[in-house]
């Protein structure tokens, strides 16, 4: 177990120097962390991702009412009727983003993970991966994830789910000698599970990344080597 007052490390890098980073993350001193991966091929996923993580950090729950309030906040950013037709159509179609939220309670006695989409949470003991959520295999990243959308009609997949069960994992640091918790967007999640499957030690690699510069260097090297997809990449690490 560990004191939970300090903030975890967090780094994010855009897919390219010219592109806007559409990932977003937020951390609080109360042990609530959130990240979101905005889908580029949608109207304004960066703003949507930012709203999701801020709202989760402020109110770490996920209900239909919570989502409706987040959508309402997003819709206030634009005057739909005054948009040019192509932007109005794209606004109506919706903006899409994942949401990964973590609540660390009582210094790790309980770690509650919420995930919609393909952002990945990882529980570690030393360099050993003890659990991942919501995906467990690198091949799962090739499937189109279901993401939260500003168009309510695109969120109907949630109607078939028990939001307190299907989207949540409960973990603990208890019994772990060297516990750590990582949250990451899909490019890094795919890299991590692929490296694990090749018998390498991705946790050991990430443990050495302690500064934004080191994170940027690590991501660029892995992209250049063809090991990591060129995408916005974000890591929250509670070592």
């Amino acid at each position, binding site marked *: 177990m560990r004191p939970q007052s300090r903030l975890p490390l967090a780094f994010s890098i855009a897919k390219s120097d010219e592109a806007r980073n559409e990932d977003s993350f937020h951390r609080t001193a109360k042990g609530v962390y959130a990240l979101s991966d905005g889908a*580029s091929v949608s109207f304004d996923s960066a703003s949507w991702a930012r709203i999701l993580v801020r709202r989760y950090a402020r109110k770490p729950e996920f209900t239909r009412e919570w989502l409706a309030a987040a959508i309402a906040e997003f819709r206030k950013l634009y005057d739909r009727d005054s948009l040019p037709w192509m932007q109005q159509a794209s606004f*109506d*179609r919706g903006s899409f983003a994942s949401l990964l939220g973590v609540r660390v309670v009582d210094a790790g006695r309980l770690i509650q993970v919420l995930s919609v989409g393909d952002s990945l949470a990882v529980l570690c003991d030393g360099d050993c991966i003890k659990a991942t959520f919501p995906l467990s295999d690198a091949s799962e990243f090739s499937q*189109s994830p279901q993401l939260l959308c500003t168009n309510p*009609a695109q969120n109907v997949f949630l109607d078939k789910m028990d939001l307190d069960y299907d989207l949540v994992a409960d973990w603990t640091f208890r019994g772990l000698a060297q516990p750590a918790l990582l949250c990451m967007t899909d490019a890094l999640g795919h890299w991590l599970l692929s490296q694990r499957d090749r018998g390498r030690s991705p946790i050991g690699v990430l443990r050495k990344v302690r500064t934004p510069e080191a994170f940027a260097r690590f991501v660029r090297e892995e992209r250049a080597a063809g090991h990591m997809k060129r995408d916005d990449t974000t890591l929250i690490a509670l070592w």
Partner: protein
Amino acid sequence: MPYQAEISRENPTCFLFVIDQSGSMDEITETGRSKADFVADVLNKTLYTLVTSCSKADGVRNYFDVGVIAYCGSEVASGFGGALSGGIVHPISAISEHTLRIEERQKKVDDGAGGIIELKTKFPIWFDPKSIGGTPMRAALSKTRETVADWCEAHPGSYPPTVLHVTDGQSTDGAPDDVADGLRQIATKDGQALLFNLHVTTAGGLEIVFPTNETELGDEFSRLLFRMSSPLPLHLAKLAGDKGYAIADGSRGFIFNGDPQCVVDFFEIGTRPKLVADR
């Protein structure tokens, strides 16, 4: 593996719509509208969807180049009017900026609280129906082949062009199959150009969708269109299967005697390349 290239602004792909506007396209379909009117409507909706999928709050991203080749009588020309009529293929941002007009329509949408509300929506029109004269299919496909060749030369690393050809009749300027064969042999590093053919009809009768062979096709014209059509790449075959069509290994991008829903699905399936980068 072909057809794997990620589509990005640096490596866009190309959609070419080749539309028969011959006199017989004025026949009335089961929707109560002429074939020409119905096809124009589906084409406008397809262009709308393509533009929408590239539109963000800060502008339209050029993931696609798009062209329309229309043919009738002795004429083969750009199907676009106004500022777009001078060339065949245009970046999607130019398509978005140069409509013929914007209509206002109503659409019903989920209000997020279990209800349905009606929203006023701006709907752009690029392509008006027309039906006159003969069917110069050979000349149209020759123009298409030339356009595809130029595009592939300029975009060697891109997902190859997809050609969606819509016709209701036989060519009146000679058999087009050798031209179609040549078109399908043009390639980028990611694969050969795709040619999909749609036969629209008012006749009713047997509908043949994404067949694997010619045996059920009743006349030489339909067999010709079958032979002119590319096999569906795996990702498009899966999409067609997801829509409920019976797909087998070797299914070709060809629909004969397609009903209105087939026309809609043909356009939707044909304009879905596998990977758009930066999802």
